[in-house]
């Protein structure tokens, strides 16, 4: 059977659906990007759905097609940022790195993310705390993830005696506080300068002061990120 010219043929059904899905996904991404900025600049509690849709230049109905409300939107924003941070950290850690080098590379990658994306950092480190129970729980999970990583340093360093069980939970909280202070004061331009301070307090309990300083001096982020 002769075929119609391509320009006159009906597009396959699957293709049309894909295109619609792509459009929907694009709209969702645009919403998330805009919401990140609005949450960071206005604060979660002062932000309304109207603020977000106005900034994204879409209709209210389109917003609710994606999210139940601003709390769910914030949660999605946090998930997206968290995914980006994880990907950047994973890419920064060289294969075969020991615990200390993983910590240094991960911290360096995270601070670079904060410097490059201060609004995103503000949303996950500050606004998530006022974003409702689910966002708060997500924030708690991030801290626990950090604490679990630090806890692995006990085995790596063969600590004897070991610190109290709550040590890493407190340490992770302390590290978050150091960054939050910078974000609240708007001092993010030189956030990379926190690298040495934060690396020191994170590693010293496991490696001791001398070895920690030596490892920090020897750390070469470019080599780490390959």
């Amino acid at each position, binding site marked *: 059977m002769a075929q119609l010219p391509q320009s006159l043929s009906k597009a396959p059904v699957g293709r049309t659906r894909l295109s619609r899905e792509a459009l929907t996904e694009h709209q969702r991404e645009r919403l998330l990007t805009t919401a990140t900025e609005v949450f960071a600049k206005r604060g979660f509690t002062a932000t309304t759905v109207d603020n977000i849709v106005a900034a994204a230049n879409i209709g209210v109905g389109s917003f609710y097609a994606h999210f139940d409300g601003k709390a769910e939107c914030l949660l999605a924003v946090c998930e997206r940022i968290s995914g980006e941070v994880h990907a950047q950290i994973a890419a920064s850690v060289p294969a075969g790195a020991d615990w200390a080098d993983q910590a240094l590379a991960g911290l360096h990658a995270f601070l670079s993310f904060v410097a490059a994306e201060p609004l995103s950092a503000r949303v996950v480190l500050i606004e998530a*705390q006022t974003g409702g129970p689910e966002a708060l729980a997500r924030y708690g999970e991030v801290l626990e993830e950090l604490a679990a990583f630090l806890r692995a340093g006990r085995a790596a360093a063969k600590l004897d005696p070991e610190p109290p069980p709550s040590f890493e939970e*407190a340490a992770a909280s*302390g590290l978050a*506080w150091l960054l939050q202070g910078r974000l*609240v004061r708007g001092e993010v331009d030189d956030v990379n300068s926190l690298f040495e301070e934060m690396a020191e307090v994170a590693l010293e309990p*496991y490696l*001791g002061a001398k070895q920690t300083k030596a490892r920090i001096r020897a750390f070469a982020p470019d080599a780490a990120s390959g």
Partner: protein
Amino acid sequence: MAPSRPKPGSGRSRLTPPRAEPSPVKPERDPFQDPIALAVVDVVAERGYRAATVAEIIERAGVSREEFDGRFADKEDCVLRSFDAFAADWEWRVNNAYSGQPDWRSGLRAAAYEVADWMSANPNLVRFGMVDILEAENEMVRVRREQALSYGGKLIDRGREAAPDPAAVPEAAAMMAVGSIVQLLTHRLQSGTDPDPVEMVQPMMYQAVRPYLGEEIAREELEMTRPERQAAIDGDKGVSNDET
């Protein structure tokens, strides 16, 4: 390898006497006697930061709108100034507890218990200062919260003078310790877990002392009991404790 930090010689003899930071002064207006400051804390605790209104605050305080307007520009201003007043009171009490002890470590411990007692006695105020005002629109409120909560860091960092090797103490040690305490309390309050501030003193003292005096001495803090309280927080120096 376990970290090794030199012990401070014979121990306590090298601890320098505590020196108070530029002394906080007793606030001119005692916030605990100020009906508006008390009302804003209670109304925010009950209704939430966003829902609390000036009308509710003045009704709870039993003052006129004119009096409120004469002192504050709006709700945010009232929150900021009330927070500042309570923070000044807190700093004054903490400093007094610290100064009344013979050395840095026991001064810090006394201050920690003073803070814990203050928090236990004023749960609404703790929630107001640590959690509720995170919702303030005025960014200055958050900045002041961070400054006030960081006050303890100045006292903690006095440990540098007591440290056997001050150069080995990480720059951020004090802020890290303060941040640990603030974040843990805030997160527990937000998650609906009622933290017992007194129970948190020993592990937090471990956290604060460790970077300065090392693992072994910090570990002692996990067993240390409350120092004998001063007769009054008015500069009375007649105190003895478990280290004297």
